[in-house]
């Protein structure tokens, strides 16, 4: 087994042991990091692997959260069904929105993803009867067989690990390789006969599904769903997490999510000026560490001919 896989195994063991510390806080933090880690990795499928800058990824996270929570709370749909519906709806909306977005490139692509995300936000914000409007809604129940924080943590760990496993398979497959080729040079890829837009759309859809899964987990974890998770700064936040961890590494975004969530928690307990610190950190990152944390670590410890 490669060195990388050993490290991975170690981490999984570590994560499995967290509830043993009997600390409600670490279970909370762990669940939070896992959820946002998945969210960030789903974004990175578009960003790092396909080269598409989406400024509206929070849309699918939000759709996943609202769908699962609403179905469970208002329609008393059993959890497995609601959960699956969340992922499905995330994928379908990504398909529809993506269809329009992949026709554009660069800044225009980003702006259209932003426009759609604001439309979905406005709908959630105003549709009082369905979504609870600007109040959002509270009281999202734990699923029946997962009615404790610790159980839910293990469930989240399982779902996220499984999702990451699947996503890993996707990026290492021929499909994934084509995505990277598209990222490097879309025109040339088109030239060798690949229908670039179709591949981009499929990547968009897949990332939407997993973002929605992360969102569904979040709605339950938070016991409430608010339209703020759809508002554009939420999309900016997950972009920052992804960049911080490293967009050219599969696990980079998970590292980024962990570091951002953790550092924010620590910093906000000392000062109310977290935004300026985040701003400087982000700027610092952009100038000196474009590869993020994992990018830096890999460069430092790279083996000759190192792999991903």
């Amino acid at each position: 087994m490669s060195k990388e896989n050993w490290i991975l195994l170690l981490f999984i063991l570590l994560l499995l042991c967290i509830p043993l510390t009997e600390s409600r806080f670490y279970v909370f933090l762990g669940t939070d990091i896992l959820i946002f880690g998945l969210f960030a990795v789903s974004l990175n499928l578009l960003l790092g692997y396909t080269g598409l800058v989406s400024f509206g990824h929070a849309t699918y996270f939000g759709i996943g959260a609202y769908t699962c929570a609403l179905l469970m709370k208002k329609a008393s749909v059993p959890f497995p069904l609601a959960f699956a519906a969340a992922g499905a709806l995330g994928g379908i909306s990504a398909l529809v929105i993506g269809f329009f977005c992949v026709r554009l490139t660069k800044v225009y692509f980003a702006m259209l993803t932003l426009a759609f995300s604001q439309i979905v936000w406005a709908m959630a914000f105003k549709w009082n009867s369905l979504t609870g409007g600007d109040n959002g809604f509270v009281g999202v129940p734990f699923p029946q067989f997962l009615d404790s924080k610790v159980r839910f943590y293990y469930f989240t760990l399982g779902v996220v690990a499984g999702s990451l496993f699947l996503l890993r398979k996707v990026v290492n497959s021929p499909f994934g390789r084509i995505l990277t080729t598209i990222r490097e040079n879309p025109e040339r890829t088109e030239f060798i006969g690949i229908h670039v837009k179709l591949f981009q759309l499929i990547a968009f859809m897949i990332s939407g599904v997993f973002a929605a899964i992360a969102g569904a987990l979040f709605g339950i974890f938070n016991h409430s769903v608010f339209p703020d998770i759809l508002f554009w700064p939420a999309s900016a936040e997950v972009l920052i997490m992804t960049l911080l961890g490293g967009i050219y590494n599969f696990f980079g975004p998970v590292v980024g999510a962990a570091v951002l969530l953790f550092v924010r928690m620590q910093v906000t307990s000392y000062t109310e000026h977290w935004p300026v610190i985040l701003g400087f950190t982000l700027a610092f990152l952009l100038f000196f560490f474009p590869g993020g944390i994992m990018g830096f670590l890999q460069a430092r410890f790279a083996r000759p001919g190192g792999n991903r």
Partner: protein
Amino acid sequence: MPDPSFLLLQSLNGLTYAMFLFLIASGLSLIFGILGILNFAHGSLYMLGAYFTQQFVSLFVDAPGQFWWAVLFASLTVAALGAVIERFFLRHLYAREELYQLLFTYALVLILADFAKIIWGTGQFSVSRPALLKGAVPILDQFFPTYNLVIIFLGPCIAFTFWFTLLRTRWGRKIRAAALDREMLSSLGVHVNRLFTVVFFIGAWLAGLGGALVSPVSAIVPGMDVEVIINAFIVVVIGGLGSFWGTFLGSLIVGQVYALGILVFPRLSLAFIYVLMALVLIIRPWGLLGRPLQR
């Protein structure tokens, strides 16, 4: 049938709002058109324009023309800040992908917002209208604030000045050339870097001016930066990123949709603007008056 004087009044309100949007959106469009950067921090520059105006007004207490001097100084301060940001930071990111530039301007939003909070606190500020323009003008059987009327006239004046500069003067020609092919221009001996700083200076000046002029009619509060930047984005997308008259048209459209939309869709007007933006991006992504580009 709502009475015509009321519709006219509502329309004029939309026009006023459009002019403020135009000031900030034109700067945004200029920076994008020439430098290729979508500046998220443009709303922050607008906000700083308002804060600085408030500061200068309290500094120039009782001076004649107090308000207008404050507007001048405030907008120039913001312009200088913009130039500094471009010269020392943004310039180093031109070679990188758009994502880095975009996220850097977002980092600026965070930093500038917190700086404003550190310097001026969380309180709300307010600036009075200049004494001459405090009243209202009778229009049909309603009243319309004089100050707003002045803004409506100022908008096209500034528009025309810029259009003229860009089209007719040597500076303008250089700037337009730089947008098309900076390498060629550079090899012809033009200091492209300096040109870019000037462009950013002007763009920032416009944003600061917008903020300065809006200070008597709006609250100067934290959060006004985020509020305005999305609307500015919508304007430039509808009008066409980089197109000058497109921005003007876009502002007019957004202003009127906003004002009249409230009458027609009182509680949906929020989503309406975003839908419009999405429609334009879908049907005609380069905007109404933009240059059709390779998509």
